[in-house]
């Protein structure tokens, strides 16, 4: 698994990093920690190193906090692998430098410049991330530093799954909403990992419209319930009218992770106006996993 953690200097990013550390300790994922210094980028020119910017210190702190998670245990990210590598010094000049790499799994820390949401999406594509993790303010705002709609843009446009962490709360259950028959294997596996790591049960909600549910979606709901039962994950299933879905979700306990499957045939996509995902993500009180 490849995890991309995008963080800024705010407390919610530190909470999200804790979740990344927990995930990584169990999955031994390849992890990239990234930050974005926002502002216009002049292409074709060297970007000066932002010595005075607080973000590079914050990212260094995130690396240290991430590595502390192992507390003396054998870490797959421990730096044991010394070797010489050719690294660019400036345009047209390379230097053979002694570097130390992780022995088993990569932990990269990266700083990018430009539009925060677009840089996060760009990094996730280049690194072929399976999961993007980022924090945001809790409550109905769900924002990043400076009031930008970074989380909403990332969940709306990412190619991979996105975990949005709202606060430092234990996850006590997973609430997964199914409104279409196409479910990717990757998304099933992502739920497996979340349920295993947090040791929680799964509640599957099938969405119906005017009391009816499409046959193939209903069949898929049963199949998914069986899939998780076969894998010893406690699962319950219920049906909810799509028009009531938003209200149902709003009533759920704040420690339940809301998992939404997104796809081209999503009923929610047709029922709610454009960018409904961003709105749902904003309105839900706890963390949200958007799966693709």
């Amino acid at each position, binding site marked *: 698994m490849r995890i991309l953690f995008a963080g800024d200097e705010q407390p919610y990013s530190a909470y999200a990093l804790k979740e990344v550390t927990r995930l990584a300790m169990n999955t031994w*994922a390849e992890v990239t920690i990234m930050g974005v210094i926002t502002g216009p980028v002049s292409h074709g020119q060297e970007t000066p190193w932002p010595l005075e910017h607080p973000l590079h210190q914050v990212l260094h702190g995130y690396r240290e906090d991430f590595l502390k998670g192992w507390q003396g245990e054998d870490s797959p990210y421990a730096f044991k692998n010394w070797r010489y590598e050719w690294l660019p010094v400036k345009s047209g000049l390379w230097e053979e430098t002694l570097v130390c790499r992780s022995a088993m799994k990569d932990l990269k820390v990266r700083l990018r410049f430009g539009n925060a949401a677009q840089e996060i999406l760009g990094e996730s594509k280049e690194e072929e991330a*399976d999961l993007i993790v980022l924090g945001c303010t809790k409550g109905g705002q769900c924002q990043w530093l400076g009031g930008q709609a970074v989380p909403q843009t990332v969940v709306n446009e990412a190619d991979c799954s996105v975990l949005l962490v709202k606060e430092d709360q234990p996850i006590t259950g997973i609430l997964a909403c199914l409104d279409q028959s196409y479910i990717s294997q990757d998304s099933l596996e992502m739920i497996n990992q979340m349920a295993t790591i947090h040791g929680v049960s799964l509640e599957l909600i099938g969405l119906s419209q005017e009391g009816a549910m499409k046959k193939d979606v209903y069949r898929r709901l049963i199949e998914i319930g069986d899939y998780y039962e076969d894998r010893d994950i406690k699962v319950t299933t219920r049906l909810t009218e799509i028009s009531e879905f938003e209200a149902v979700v709003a009533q759920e306990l704040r420690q339940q992770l809301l998992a939404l499957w997104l796809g081209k045939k999503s009923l929610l996509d047709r029922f709610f106006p454009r960018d409904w995902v961003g709105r749902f993500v904003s309105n839900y009180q706890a963390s949200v996993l958007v799966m693709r």
Partner: protein
Amino acid sequence: MSQNKLKILVLDDEPIVCKRLQPALEKLGFTVDTFTRSFEALQAVESSTYDIIITDLKMEGMDGMRFLTEAKKISPEVEVIVITGFATMETAKESFKKGVFDFIAKPFNLGEIQQVVQRAAAKIRESRK
């Protein structure tokens, strides 16, 4: 068929995983056999020589941990890559204690597993020089 072609065994009780991995690894020049039942896979390890084994952990019957232990007894040189949809710190540590080459949690993209398999192949080729 090239004499240098490394042979890989893939064991996962989910056929879709085998279906994805086989062409992705064959594209890199490996010979790939896939199995969805661990007992059948173990019989194959007994009757044939594999260079790399890719195995799931949680399976009905003989689980992946027991399978890799048995496979290593039969063929100590084989490099084992564990893939699991139910990763825990304990399974990761136990896997490494048993001498696996790498531990990969699902979901993974094909590029990730291709890279790991290439590293394992490089190690095997280096050891045979």
